[in-house]
């Protein structure tokens, strides 16, 4: 460190007083006021802000739900129903939280796909991408833990199936599973620790999100053209330009999520979770939450237990290496005529995997899942590293402002 810089002066004496002791005012001014955003960013760049807002809403609604929830196998189900019936606006809190989780994943998926399509993971934003994958992993863990808490049939059997994955690990598997559960089966000890972890993990996510945002602000946001900012004319300030754009996105999102919360709050829920957990009866179809279904499809596509588990975790782990698998210097798929289509096919493939993940693992569904699995890994391990041998990227514009010059002519 080069010693404290000359503190900024403010007219307001209170701000001045704070700034002199902790330069937090100028920090926010720099990072969220004057912060330059490429002016060609489209609405896909609003999904980061959207995700942050949902995270806060999830944490807040979760805290208020926790005030009324009882993490005990005998009382959990009834306490959730008490929230729905007797607690003032309890039904609203719970439906915000349960549907908010699903929408959180929708938003995050769009955010990830945007990052992939426009090459936001490439130099110099690799660490940013890695932090993002960590957030995604933490989100999956948190949502799984949270799904256990209402202690319905799906809660119980979902927890049973997922924790049994660990028993696939040779030698230590069984012991590890018992250690995770704190019991021989999913029981009261499990419910208690899942509740404790479900409460604390979102704050960890929040911390990683702070790093994720700080990291992107170092080199600035990527943009649809995938080229660097050349001058001030290429950018707009975050306030008010991006703020208003993001606010519009939030309103559009608000309409969508409200439609589900108020008019179809159980559309994305599994009906079996309104039956209290019964360790003696397994429901006919156990399915994961739809947002985890693509990985569930991969798990079941492999006939070997350990192999399935490894490939499933591999499918997530491989995301960490994407910045190094992709050798192309061009970021945005808009300028990569071939990779663009493989990328789109990857998205479609991911949706299809999710679809078959919710279906019984047999016949045609199993075949589709296996083909999907092959493309998933083929995309990362073959297409992405080697496509630039044959692909010729389009010419990139000289600067962001040049894009608009071309348009006006």
């Amino acid at each position, binding site marked *: 460190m080069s010693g404290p810089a000359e503190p900024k002066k403010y007219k307001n004496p209170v701000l001045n007083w704070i700034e002199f002791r902790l330069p937090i005012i100028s920090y926010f001014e720099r990072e969220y006021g004057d912060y330059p955003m490429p002016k060609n960013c489209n609405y896909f760049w609003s999904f980061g802000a959207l995700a942050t807002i949902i995270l806060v809403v999830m944490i*807040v609604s979760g805290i*208020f739900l926790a*005030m009324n929830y009882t993490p005990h196998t005998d009382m959990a189900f009834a306490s959730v129903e008490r929230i729905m019936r007797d*607690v003032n*606006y309890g039904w609203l*809190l719970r439906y915000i939280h349960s549907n908010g989780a699903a929408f959180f994943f929708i938003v995050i998926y769009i955010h990830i796909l945007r990052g992939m399509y426009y090459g936001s993971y490439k130099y110099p934003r690799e660490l940013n991408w890695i932090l993002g994958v960590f957030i995604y992993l933490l989100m999956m863990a948190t949502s799984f833990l949270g799904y256990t808490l209402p202690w319905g049939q799906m809660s119980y059997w979902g927890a049973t199936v997922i924790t049994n994955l660990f028993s696939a690990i040779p030698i230590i598997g069984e012991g590890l599973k018992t250690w995770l559960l704190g019991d021989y089966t999913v029981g009261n000890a499990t419910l208690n620790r899942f509740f404790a972890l479900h409460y604390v993990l979102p704050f960890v996510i929040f911390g990683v999100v702070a790093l994720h945002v700080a990291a992107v602000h170092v080199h600035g946001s990527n943009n649809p053209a995938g080229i660097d900012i050349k001058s001030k004319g290429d950018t707009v300030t975050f306030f008010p330009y991006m703020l*208003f754009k993001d*606010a519009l996105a939030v309103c559009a999102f608000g309409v969508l999520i409200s439609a589900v919360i108020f008019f179809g709050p159980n559309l994305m829920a599994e009906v079996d979770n309104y039956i209290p957990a019964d360790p003696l009866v397994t429901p006919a179809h156990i399915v994961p939450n739809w947002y985890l279904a693509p990985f569930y499809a991969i798990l079941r596509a492999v006939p070997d237990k350990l192999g399935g588990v490894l490939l499933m975790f591999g499918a997530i782990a491989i995301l960490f290496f994407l910045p190094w698998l992709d050798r192309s210097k061009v970021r945005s798929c808009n300028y990569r005529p071939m990779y663009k289509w493989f990328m789109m096919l990857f998205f479609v493939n991911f949706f299809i995997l999710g679809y078959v993940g919710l279906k019984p693992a047999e016949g045609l569904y199993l075949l589709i899942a296996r083909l999907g699995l092959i493309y998933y890994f083929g995309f990362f391990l073959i297409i992405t590293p080697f496509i630039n041998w044959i692909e010729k990227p389009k010419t990139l514009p000289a600067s962001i402002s040049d894009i608009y010059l071309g348009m006006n002519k």
Partner: protein
Amino acid sequence: MAEVKNNKRRSFLQLSTISLGAIGTAGFIWPFLKSMNPAEDTLALGSTEVNIADIEEGQGITVKWRGKPVFIRKRTQKEISEAKAVKLEDLKDPAIDDDRVKKDEWLVLVGICTHLGCVPLGQKITDMKGEYNGWYCPCHGSHYDSSGRIRKGPAPTNLAVPPYSFINDTTIKIG
């Protein structure tokens, strides 16, 4: 000229956005705060019925009503006359004894000191009853008389009288 008008319209739009946004945020926070109020099942547990047939003169019992201790005391003739003799000027929170009881010998009080919520002593025969022969709060030294009125100490008001009614001579219903 057009530029000025333009700016005015812009700031008007931004101002209405911000104010509507603020209303929306407040509306969003409201249900969360509301959820911390007692839930309906808590509110529904309103009343408790108590059998008072076995209480002897000069003794009292403590029952639970809405999670709070309620003192039910059968007062002696001496206590009743003491309570009635007090002049209103001597009271910190003036109230006459007749307004605090339904039947002279039965005194029903919420047993929570109006200072900071401790439970005053005086229910057991061996307890300290304070300087006014009623209740004495050990936390900060408030003295209550035989009508449950504050006489000395930091408490600002008399011990509260809960809503209650006599179902018959031996049963009262609190709440």
